[in-house]
């Protein structure tokens, strides 16, 4: 990531605000679309951002989503101040969830969020500190590698 970024930005996400959950992902999708990136790439980036945003709204006090676009890839970081995840391995298991009924009413909280983020990212990193917060880093490649497509 030494290249000069094509785009760099940071958007804040308010914890607990379900009414606006998804606004940040929609903005990021608009930005990436305007940059002329392929629609399947934009869709993947919006998807991982949206799941991250839902996680921040659902569990954290506040957070931010950073977007960093360079030739060849999109990097998205979701950083929150919140309870953190005590057991990341467990949290990554499909179906594991600590979601409240409110989150489930929204159609989330079935323990699929982190799995979806991982499966739609070309690179995914997660770290967390209990009582402090969680950090997610996702990279989506924008130019297709013919060997892996």
């Amino acid at each position, binding site marked *: 990531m030494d290249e000069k970024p094509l785009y760099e930005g940071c958007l804040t996400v308010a914890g607990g605000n379900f009414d606006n*959950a*998804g606004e940040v*992902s*929609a903005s990021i999708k608009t930005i990436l679309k305007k940059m002329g990136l392929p629609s*399947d790439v934009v869709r993947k980036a919006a998807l991982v951002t949206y799941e991250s945003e839902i996680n921040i709204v659902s569990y954290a006090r506040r957070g931010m989503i950073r977007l960093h676009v360079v030739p060849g890839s999109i990097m998205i970081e979701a950083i929150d101040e919140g309870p953190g995840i005590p057991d990341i391995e467990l949290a990554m298991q499909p179906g594991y969830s600590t979601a409240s009924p409110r989150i489930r009413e*929204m*159609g989330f909280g079935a323990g699929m969020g982190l799995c979806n983020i991982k*499966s739609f990212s070309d690179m995914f990193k997660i770290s967390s500190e209990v009582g402090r917060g969680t950090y997610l880093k996702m990279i989506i490649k924008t130019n297709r590698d013919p060997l892996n497509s």
Partner: protein
Amino acid sequence: MILHEIKDLLEAEVLIGEDQLDMEVKTAFMADLMSDVLAFATAGSLLITGLTNPQVLRTADVIDIAAIIMGRGKRLSPEMTQLAEMMNIPVLTTKYILFEVAGRLYSKGIRGCIEKVGSK
């Protein structure tokens, strides 16, 4: 199928997108769990759901869903109407239960956007 044929087939009411009824769709995905919609629905598909909250629209927007069919007579809240208008995504409501919606659409040639879930 063309969206207006779907409207007739399901005796649906168009809540948003009266001007987009000439759109053609070939595939659909049905779920109330938005994480599964994100995981499995493909761009350009219909989203059939019984869930009514803004996250349905947000989810549809994120993954380029063509149109939303709300079953069991579900309707949009005023804030959802505003959001759907802004996103310009057609939303239809039908009194048919989701099973009937799926069956009727399938019998007219609409197929699942994927047949089975599996390893990627």
